[in-house]
Structures are given as structure tokens and as C-alpha cells.
């Protein structure tokens, strides 16, 4: 086993199985030449890479799959059983990659699996495991066919020296152009050769090396015919270690903070005698830095963005496995994999999504018999989709299963002692559905092996919250359920208003702030146990930030400083001591003990090095 190469193979192998699985999914919808070609290439490359390791069953199976795909490409076969068999092969390859990642070897029994799947594809595995392709078909590069002129020896050319000068030469064949005929009359000075070679160098470099004999040379780029349709769509990519990008991102964040220091300097300069000019110059510099840092931050943010596809493509196999084990028939669709989000979000979503999907399969979707009894098709539809909505991404898991009955959920929560009778009575349907997010709700005994692993919807909600997102739920009894995860696309700069309250500073995201106002005590109207004021003919209720954060209210001034925030569709006035600043900052999610602190969005570092808590007005006031 080649240990150095294994990690690369695992990464590449995942990409290739994902590609193949995606292509097969396209093929399942109907004939699709591009998908077929792409799938063939993926399997071919996968086989070639697997051959570097001691994995005979995998190589043989992939070889058989490649043969089958080759036959499908040439139109030699159109067996309807081929696609499901190929999907199984790709799934199995993915499972083997799991095994390799865990223990660097395939589990025993791989040969049996291989034989079963090969039989499924209707082909016996080839006898030789280490079948080696001719180099020409495995490597990309430039194929050269050089037919020197018959009189070239007289002209002083040495065709061998010429071909030798080609950079990146990997495969050379030399053959007579015509049969030599009667050797008794062999003419040593008439060239009768044709040379074929492959070069891994750029076509331009190959052309340069052969420029003097260009009329005797034919070049063609290998694998070009197969990939020509997709070449333009391919995005140039670079694999970079995630830590480096994270470091770059941290440095950029620090730059944002350091930049903020310039504003302080400008303010200090302003106070100096004759300091006005200096302050102006500093501000001009700051404006320039602002723009550059903003661009840098945006660019780094985009580096961090990755498509959801690699994550999404892991699920079809898992869904098939879970559905099979539950005896349910599911048509699983994935869409929107091209949506790009912050890599941290992609990485953090596997567990939550897996849990939501398992839940849907286990609790949402009925058995085929039950479905037919209620007049539905035996096969259920499960859909995982993503779309971007402004600076958020919306990921939905939609099933057409039994749906959730709010009253039943309420009863279950009651039975488990999660709520009491009076709380239950106050719940509307939507609030009752939300009970599934309570810790302890889904870890109960009714949960099956699959979804009841002590991971409930509460864990899903907190995992999503850690990524700066929220979970929504909608369900109709008998029709199905939708679980919606709404997450930020990037961990980008947020505009923050800094306010003070009882001597402490707090940040408020400006997107939630409508305006600020000064309200004289005399303008307040008592409303039940609180107060309100009228702002442009609208009654705006008042809350005190001090109450919200658990501080004591300061002595009441004559004029209140009020931040008017939009919470849902309503305006709410929040009384603060003062509005002291506005700034751009990266809000970091809370970690450690404060992960679940209510009403806190995250924190950010200020220019002077202090930590500013950024409050979630929706949660605090709502």
C-alpha cells in the first residue's frame, strides 16, 4: 500500500464517486451523452488511481463497470438493469473508500461483494487484476505521430534525436512505415520509420521542439474528443489546505480591527493644535484602507465559499441504505448542490442534515402498504434542496410522508414532562410543532435505532445556530413535512451599532435597526404594564435594554435615547443610554460556555481589544 498517496486518493476518489453518482442520476432521467461520457471518465480515472494501491476487488469491479459504460457509450448495450447496477457499484466504491479512510485496507469479503456486483452488471470480472492500460490511454497529454521524410538521413536529420528533444516524453513507439521487403537489398539510408509518442508537456512546447519537422508531424491532444463538451464549463480550481485559508481569513479580520484604530488616531489628531490637516490626511487614508480591506474581506470570504454538492452527494447512498433497512421505497432528489456557502457551513451541516433526513425516512415516510392504503403512490418522494436568498442559503428537506400532528406532539411533550398542562393549553399549532426542538423530546424510547441515537432535533437546532442559522418547520398531517434550515452564506462583515447601557457596551446589527430617536418623558404613554410612544402616527412599544440584559435601569433622564428596531413586522423602541459608534465587524459565533446564551448573536473584537457582545434583537425582544 502506498501510504503517501492514500490521502490524495481518498480525496480524489470521493470527488470521482460523487461525479459518477451525479452522472448516473442524470442518466436515470433519460439518455444523456454528456453524463455518460463524464461517468465513463470518472470510473476510468478511479480505476486507474485504485490500481496504484493493493485493491484488486475494487479495481476489477471498476474495470467491469468501465466496460459496461463503454458498451453503453458505443450503443452496444441498453440494458435497463445497467443503471441500478452501476449505482450499486458506485455506492460500494464509496463504502470501500470509507473503509480505506478508516483502516487503509478493505474489509474481508470484498471479493464476494465484487462478484455479486459484477454479476449484477452482467459481466465477469477480467482475470487479471493488475491490468495495465497502455500509457497512451491513461495519461492526458499530446500524442505525436512523426513520419520522417524518406530522404531525411541524407538531409542530415536524425529523427530519433528530434523526438528525443521533445519535453515530457513518456511513451515512444518506433515502427517501420512500410514493410522492409527483401533484406538482401536493404537500403540503410532511406528512412522508413514512423514514430509515435506521448508528451505530457504543453502542446506549445511540443510544437516548438518539432518546429523544424512540423510538416512531418501530426499532433493530437489525448482525451480531447471525450472531454470537449465539458472543458469550457470546468472551473479552474486549486486545492489549498483549509488552515491556510482560515489563517488568511483571521489575518483579514485582524486587519479590519487594526484599520479601526486609524479612526481613533484621526480623532486624537483632530484634538491637537494644528492637527486638523493631519486628521484629514488620516481620514483620507482610512477611507482608502476601508475600501481595500472591504474588498480583501470579500475575496477571502469567496475563497471560503464552496458548493454544497460534495456534501449533498453523500446523502443519496445513505438515504438508499436507510430506506432499504426500513423497507421503504423512496425516490430521493437532490437539487441546488451548486449553491455556494462558507466552507464552515458546508462542513457543519453533515450531521444535522443526516439527522433530518433519517427522521424523515424513519418517522415521516410511511411504509409502501400504508401509503397505498391512504391513496398515495407506494414510493415516497424525499427532496433535499438548496437555494440562495440574499445573504442566506435556504436548505430544505421535504417529504410527502405522514406529516406531524401538532396535538400528538403536544401530548408526547406532556407525557415526557417537557411542558405542563397550562403551557400546553397556550400553544397554537405552530408552537406545538416547535416542541420537537426541545431537548429530550426525540431521545425517548419510541425513537428507533436509526434516528434515536440520543441526537434529537434540539441538537440539529443548536448545530445550525452555531453556524449562525435557524431551523423552521412546517407540516401538514397526511401530506408531509418540510424542515427548513436558513443559514448565512458567508461569515461576512456586518454593520454594527454600538450602544451603551448601564456602563457596558453592546453591539446591535444595523440591519435590524430602523432608526434612532430621542423621546421626551412627556411623550410616553403607558400601555398596560409597559410604555409606548408615537412615532409618525404609529404606536411603538418601549423596552429597556437594561431589562433585556439583566442590568439595572439608570436613573431616568428627561429625554430617552431610543433605537427603533424592526422585530418581525413590528417596530419596537429599545431604550439605551447612548449610541456611541457604528462599525463594520465580523461577528464570530459564540463558543464554549456561551454557545447557548440566549439573545446573543456572537461577539467581535473592538479596535481597543475589548470584546463586544452583539445582541440578537429578534430573540431578545421577540
Amino acid at each position: 500500500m502506498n501510504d503517501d498517496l492514500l490521502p490524495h486518493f481518498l480525496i480524489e476518489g470521493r470527488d470521482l464517486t460523487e461525479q459518477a453518482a451525479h452522472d448516473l442520476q442524470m442518466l436515470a432521467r433519460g439518455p444523456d451523452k454528456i453524463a455518460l461520457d463524464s461517468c465513463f471518465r470518472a470510473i476510468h480515472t478511479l480505476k486507474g488511481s485504485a490500481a496504484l494501491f493493493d485493491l484488486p476487488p475494487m479495481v476489477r469491479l471498476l474495470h467491469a463497470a468501465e466496460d459496461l459504460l463503454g458498451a453503453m457509450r458505443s450503443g452496444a448495450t441498453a440494458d435497463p438493469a445497467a443503471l441500478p447496477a452501476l449505482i450499486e457499484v458506485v455506492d460500494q466504491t464509496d463504502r470501500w473508500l470509507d473503509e480505506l479512510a478508516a483502516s487503509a485496507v478493505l474489509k474481508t469479503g470484498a471479493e464476494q461483494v465484487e462478484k455479486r456486483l459484477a454479476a449484477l452488471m452482467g459481466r465477469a470480472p477480467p482475470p487479471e487484476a493488475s491490468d495495465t492500460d497502455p500509457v497512451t490511454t491513461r495519461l492526458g497529454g499530446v500524442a505525436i505521430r512523426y513520419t520522417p521524410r524518406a530522404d531525411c538521413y541524407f538531409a542530415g536529420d536524425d529523427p530519433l534525436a528530434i523526438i528525443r528533444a521533445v519535453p515530457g516524453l513518456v511513451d515512444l513507439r518506433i515502427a517501420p512505415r512500410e514493410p522492409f521487403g527483401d533484406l538482401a537489398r536493404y537500403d540503410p539510408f532511406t528512412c522508413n520509420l514512423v514514430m509515435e509518442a506521448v508528451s505530457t508537456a504543453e502542446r506549445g512546447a511540443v510544437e516548438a521542439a518539432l518546429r523544424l519537422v512540423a510538416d512531418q508531424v501530426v499532433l493530437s491532444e489525448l482525451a480531447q474528443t471525450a472531454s470537449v463538451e465539458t472543458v469550457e464549463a470546468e472551473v479552474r480550481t486549486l486545492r489549498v489546505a483549509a488552515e491556510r485559508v482560515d489563517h488568511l481569513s483571521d489575518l483579514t479580520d485582524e486587519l479590519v480591527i487594526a484599520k479601526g484604530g486609524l479612526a481613533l488616531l484621526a480623532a486624537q489628531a483632530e484634538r491637537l493644535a494644528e492637527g486638523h490637516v493631519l486628521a484629514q490626511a488620516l481620514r483620507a487614508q482610512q477611507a482608502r484602507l476601508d475600501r481595500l480591506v472591504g474588498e480583501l474581506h470579500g475575496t477571502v470570504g469567496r475563497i471560503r465559499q464552496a458548493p454544497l454538492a460534495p456534501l449533498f452527494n453523500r446523502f443519496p447512498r445513505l438515504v438508499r441504505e436507510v430506506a432499504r433497512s426500513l423497507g421503504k421505497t423512496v425516490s430521493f432528489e437532490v437539487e441546488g448542490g451548486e449553491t455556494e456557502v462558507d466552507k464552515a457551513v458546508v462542513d457543519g451541516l453533515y450531521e444535522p442534515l443526516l439527522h433530518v433526513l433519517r427522521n424523515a425516512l424513519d418517522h415521516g415516510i410511511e411504509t409502501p402498504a400504508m401509503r397505498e392504503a391512504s391513496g398515495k403512490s407506494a414510493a415516497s418522494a424525499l427532496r433535499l434542496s438548496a437555494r440562495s436568498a440574499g445573504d442566506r442559503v435556504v436548505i430544505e428537506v421535504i417529504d410527502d410522508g405522514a406529516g406531524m400532528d401538532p396535538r400528538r406532539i403536544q401530548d408526547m411533550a406532556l407525557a415526557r414532562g417537557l411542558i405542563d398542562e397550562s403551557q400546553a393549553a397556550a400553544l397554537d399549532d405552530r408552537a406545538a410543532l416547535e416542541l420537537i426542538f426541545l431537548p429530550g423530546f426525540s431521545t425517548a424510547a419510541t425513537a428507533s435505532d436509526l434516528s434515536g441515537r440520543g441526537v434529537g432535533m434540539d441538537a440539529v437546532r443548536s448545530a445550525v445556530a452555531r453556524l449562525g442559522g435557524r431551523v423552521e418547520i412546517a407540516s401538514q398531517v397526511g401530506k408531509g413535512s418540510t424542515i427548513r434550515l436558513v443559514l448565512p452564506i458567508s461569515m461576512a462583515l456586518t454593520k454594527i451599532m454600538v450602544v451603551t447601557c448601564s456602563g457596558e457596551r453592546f453591539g446591535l446589527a444595523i440591519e435590524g435597526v430602523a432608526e434612532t430617536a430621542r423621546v421626551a418623558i412627556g411623550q410616553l404613554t403607558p400601555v398596560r404594564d409597559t410604555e409606548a410612544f408615537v412615532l409618525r402616527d404609529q404606536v411603538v412599544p418601549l423596552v429597556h435594554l437594561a431589562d433585556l440584559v439583566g442590568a439595572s435601569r439608570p436613573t431616568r433622564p428627561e429625554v430617552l435615547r431610543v433605537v427603533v428596531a424592526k422585530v418581525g413586522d413590528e417596530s419596537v423602541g429599545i431604550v439605551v443610554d447612548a449610541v456611541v459608534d457604528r462599525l463594520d465587524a465580523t461577528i464570530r459565533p459564540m463558543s464554549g460556555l456561551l454557545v447557548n446564551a440566549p439573545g446573543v448573536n456572537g461577539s467581535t473584537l473592538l479596535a481597543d481589544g475589548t470584546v463586544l457582545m452583539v445582541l440578537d434583537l429578534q430573540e431578545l425582544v421577540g
Partner: protein
Amino acid sequence: MSLRLDGDVIRFEGQCRVEDTETLVALLHKAPEAKLDLAACQGMHAAVVQAMLAFGRPVVAWPTEGFLKDHLAPALAGLRPTKL
């Protein structure tokens, strides 16, 4: 002198140039059973390679020089020239 007949073996030594081709063909005619020893060969003109292909004599030792070893030897080893 880059080519010489040594008993049953034609030895290639140093650079075998285009002008050596005539010598090689003469030796091949002269010794129809002779095998080829390329071990000491440092370079070979295409005309020499062509004669080897044409006569298809067995090679008893391959060159050690980089290009000859890596590219020429496989190119020739894979071929079984047909004598017509």
C-alpha cells in the same frame, strides 16, 4: 569504432552514427546468426535503429544510457518485426 563483431555478438559502443549504419548492415549480412549487445551504446542514430528493426535480431544486452534505456529499449522490445 562503434560497431564490431565479437564472435556471435555485434557490440555497439559509444555513439552509433548514421555513417555506422552501412557497417552494421554489412555485419548483419555477414553474420546472419549474430545477436546484438547494446550495453556500451551511448547514443544511436535513427538509421541504426531502423536497421535493427529491419533485421529483428535478438538483443542480449540493453543500453544503460538514460534515453536509450527509458524510451528506446521499450520501443524496440515491444516490437516483433515481420520479415517479409
